[in-house]
């Protein structure tokens, strides 16, 4: 088959575009839907939600308000999504709970830490992030739920094989 340079470029460009859309938009969703019957179903209701709102509702709240008094420290680019260091510190008075939420993971809630009186609302840990997404720090105080987020770009996913 003979193909002019222009035709070849057009064809390959549209081909990549289709591939790009498929890999970024559609495929992870389809893959998630296909694997979900096999996915572990954690019996705790907080871990069943797929969005920040559903996690807040499972914890008995209404909705989370964005706050600048929460410090979330995580790398902008995580080379290995299986090990992403996260530091969260809350300056909100009466902080009782800090949770790490990544909505593109099979379970949105990664971990929740409960702070009795005398413990500083500070935690450092390492989590898995499946794909590039906004990492969210959710804080529960006496006044309700607050959150902040940070975009973490993942070059190698944390939940695959």
């Amino acid at each position, binding site marked *: 088959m003979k193909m002019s340079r222009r035709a070849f470029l057009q064809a390959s460009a549209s081909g990549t575009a289709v591939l790009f859309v498929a890999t970024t938009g559609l495929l992870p969703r389809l893959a998630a839907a296909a694997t979900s019957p096999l996915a572990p179903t954690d019996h*705790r209701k907080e871990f069943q939600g797929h969005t920040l709102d559903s996690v807040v509702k499972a914890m008995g709240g209404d909705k989370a308000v964005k706050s600048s008094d929460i410090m979330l420290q995580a790398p902008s680019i995580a080379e290995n999504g*299986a090990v992403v260091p996260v530091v969260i510190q809350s300056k909100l008075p009466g902080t009782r709970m800090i949770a790490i939420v990544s909505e593109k993971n099979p379970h949105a809630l*990664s971990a929740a830490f409960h702070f009795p009186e005398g413990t*500083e609302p500070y935690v450092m840990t390492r989590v898995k992030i499946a794909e590039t997404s906004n990492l969210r720090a959710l804080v529960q105080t006496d006044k309700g739920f607050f959150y902040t987020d940070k975009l973490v770009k993942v070059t190698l996913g944390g939940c695959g094989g």
Partner: protein
Amino acid sequence: MADPMRIRARLTGDTVEVKVLMAHPMETGLRKDSSGKLIPAHYIETVKATCKGKDVLTADWGPAVSKNPFLAFRFKGAAKGDKVTITWKDTAGESRTDDAVVS
């Protein structure tokens, strides 16, 4: 039986900073082994830290906490020589308790 945790508790001013490194595979249940079979989920679900009979931190974890989890937190109200005890329980029903002396 899982390997022991490595715990360090250091007092600076009036605050104790505790750093814990646990040995655990934290399998999500989504990974496949080389023959294509799913590796069953096996992860730590709850972590509890106590000092002088009082809870200083409790945590609920899902499978998204990294393998061989690391955890650091800070609390007040302990002196040098006090003991910090950490316990984890996982989805397989295993648990492990280790302690460290505040230094």
